[in-house]
């Protein structure tokens, strides 16, 4: 490689370009992650990027009600801390009138009328002193401007897991995805072996069929299958929407790709190993179970990941075959549901979305080698 120079050494522009691209690509997801951790009030009023630094914003607090006033040196005092609820920050300015919320600087003592003076310190502690007793039932509203450090919370996740049905949907998704990953692999492996190494009439034709089916859009199948399921349901008096139904449906939709990938791989295994086994007295079944399967593990792993991600992230098959009943929704459907019904509750949206994304991300990050290897099998053409 002396002439062309090392592939690995290249100019600063290259690094910068790639860095920009990477940032562009990861910012959206990062934004969601940050948002899901924010306090729900903050979420809807400021962009998520503000949560990363201390920002100043206008807020409202309330003094304790007059019933809590304390007498001191002949005056009546109401005291407290604007950051009482576990927050913290630095007060910059404050006021009691909507028209002038930043009338006084922090640390000053302001006259807010009726002889009452209000002091708010930078740390949020405040004191309202009046020569006469306070009246009324509600505490005085205090407007203040403060710099708030980022406040993160897991509350959103807690709320979402408990009440929004995410927990249940998570289990539903698992129940759908795991068999819908394993069963297609089983069936496809046998079929792939038959197509690769067994002799029977019509083999080439079947192969062409599989390749052709690779591109048939799901949409073609949905309506007739829905009718079929419903008909069978009424015929046998059973519910048309069952887990078995969706397992087989996902198997059907995933089989063409599975058979294609596995067949390519298995056909590439050395013929002589199988001939040797045949001489040793192995039947096709023996060869498949004892030799082909163990040697095909990489391909099987690759496809499992594909299928797992595909089924987990699927929306339409779940809605059509599993139904839209509340307790049957899978994670993706639940998310769409929430988008529609609680679309303005960003905190629920973000946490739910991130939970939906979490499992595939983990699977992807830990097994990406296999996934990529699977993608490449049969795709690279000269």
């Amino acid at each position: 490689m002396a002439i062309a120079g090392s592939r690995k050494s290249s100019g600063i522009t290259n690094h910068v370009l790639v860095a920009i691209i990477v940032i562009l690509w990861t910012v959206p997801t990062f934004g969601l992650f940050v948002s899901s951790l924010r306090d729900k009030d903050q979420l809807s009023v400021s962009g998520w990027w503000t949560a990363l630094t201390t920002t100043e914003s206008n807020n409202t607090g309330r003094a304790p009600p007059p019933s809590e006033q304390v007498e001191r040196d002949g005056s009546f005092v109401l005291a407290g801390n604007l950051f009482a609820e576990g927050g913290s920050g630095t007060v910059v300015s404050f006021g009691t009138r909507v028209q002038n919320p930043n009338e006084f600087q922090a640390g000053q003592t302001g006259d807010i009328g009726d002889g009452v003076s209000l002091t708010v310190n930078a740390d949020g502690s405040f004191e309202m002193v009046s020569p006469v007793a306070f009246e009324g039932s509600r505490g005085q509203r205090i407007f203040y401007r403060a710099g708030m450090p980022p406040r993160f919370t897991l509350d959103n996740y807690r709320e979402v897991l408990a009440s929004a049905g995410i927990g249940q949907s998570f289990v539903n998704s698992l129940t759908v995805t795991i068999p819908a990953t394993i069963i297609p692999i089983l069936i496809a492996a046998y079929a792939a072996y038959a197509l690769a190494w067994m002799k029977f009439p019509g083999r080439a034709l079947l192969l062409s069929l599989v390749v052709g089916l690779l591109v048939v859009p799901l949409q073609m199948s949905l309506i007739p299958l829905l009718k079929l399921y419903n008909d069978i349901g009424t015929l046998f008096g059973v519910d048309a929407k069952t887990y078995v139904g969706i397992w087989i449906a996902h198997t059907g939709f995933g089989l063409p790709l599975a058979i294609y990938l596995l067949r390519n791989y298995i056909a590439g295994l050395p013929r002589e190993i199988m001939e040797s086994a045949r001489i040793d007295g192995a039947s096709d079944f023996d060869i498949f179970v004892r030799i082909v399967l163990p040697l095909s593990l990489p391909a099987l792993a690759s496809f499992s990941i594909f299928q797992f991600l595909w089924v987990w992230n699927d929306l339409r098959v779940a809605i059509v075959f599993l139904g839209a009943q509340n307790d049957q929704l899978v994670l993706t459907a639940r998310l769409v549901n929430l988008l529609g019904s609680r679309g303005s509750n960003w905190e629920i949206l973000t946490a739910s979305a991130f939970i939906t994304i979490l499992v595939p991300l983990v699977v992807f990050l830990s097994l990406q080698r296999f996934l990529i290897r699977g993608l490449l099998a049969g795709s690279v053409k000269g």
Partner: protein
Amino acid sequence: MERQLIGAFLAIVIGVGACALYYFASNMILDLALPFRKGGARAVRNQKLAATIRPWLFLGPALLILTVYLVYPAIDSLRLSFYDRASENFVGIRNYVWAVNDDEFRQSIFNNVLWLLVVPALSTFFGLVIAFLTDRIWWGNIAKTLIFMPMAISFVGASVIWKFIYDFRSEGSTQIGLLNAIVQGLGGEPQAWITLPFWNNFFLMIILVWIQTGFAMVILSAALRGISEETIEAAIIDGAKGPQLFFYIMIPQIWGTIAVVWTTITITVLKVFDIVLAMTNGQWDTQVLANLMFDWMFRGGGDFGRGATIAIIIMVAVVPIMVWNIRRANAEMEGR
């Protein structure tokens, strides 16, 4: 919750177990019915007979499922497109006539064409450039993983993510959508991006490009690495520089792969409805065929006739690619 978990676990075990059982059982039965271990003329006959039956045992489940779930429905969809909403009465080509005249349908076709033109092209282009760039730096693999990550996310999840970017608040108020925040920060007027007629399609497309670029990048990166080093060296000796190398030496050698990537993404574009459903549900003229079909499956109790019609039209768009794929696969098979 525990009950659900246990129930789920049992369901999984039984489902998978039943499937595996079929294979063992069927083979065992075959071996019992046609014994061959003892030797002799009978054994020979049996083994031959078994060898003709066994492939079909292996293929059986796959063939059955493929037929029921892909072949039969494809044919039936065609049939249903000639029937009415509840599939009871034959109505000839009325559904097709309706489609051609329906505004929403026309809009969908127009939009789909836009999607088909833009998304595969952009994804492939970005994928190629990124593959080229990341191959040359030491942290290339990390970069690639990060760019590929969106592929693991569901389309719905992606939609939520991008909702945060496109969010709109009225002018002057704090923007929480990243795009509007940047626009407003630069002095411009914030827009409700996904409602802007015509342009909103592109904003939705960006989401799919964001996802699919990773796919294109991975495959094209492998293809680039497969280019023989020597052709590049020979070209350098001949005096070729960077861009010339790229366009005249590297791209022609991976043309086949580029075509594969392009067509695969095209198929995905035709199938995707989740993004449109989640972001706009077809409003503001963003409707696409896949979502429209889904809509008609359930709208007003479901009109299967119209839904099937749309499905058929999607299929028609796919057929050229299917034919090309089969031809290519057959040509390859000659070598085996």
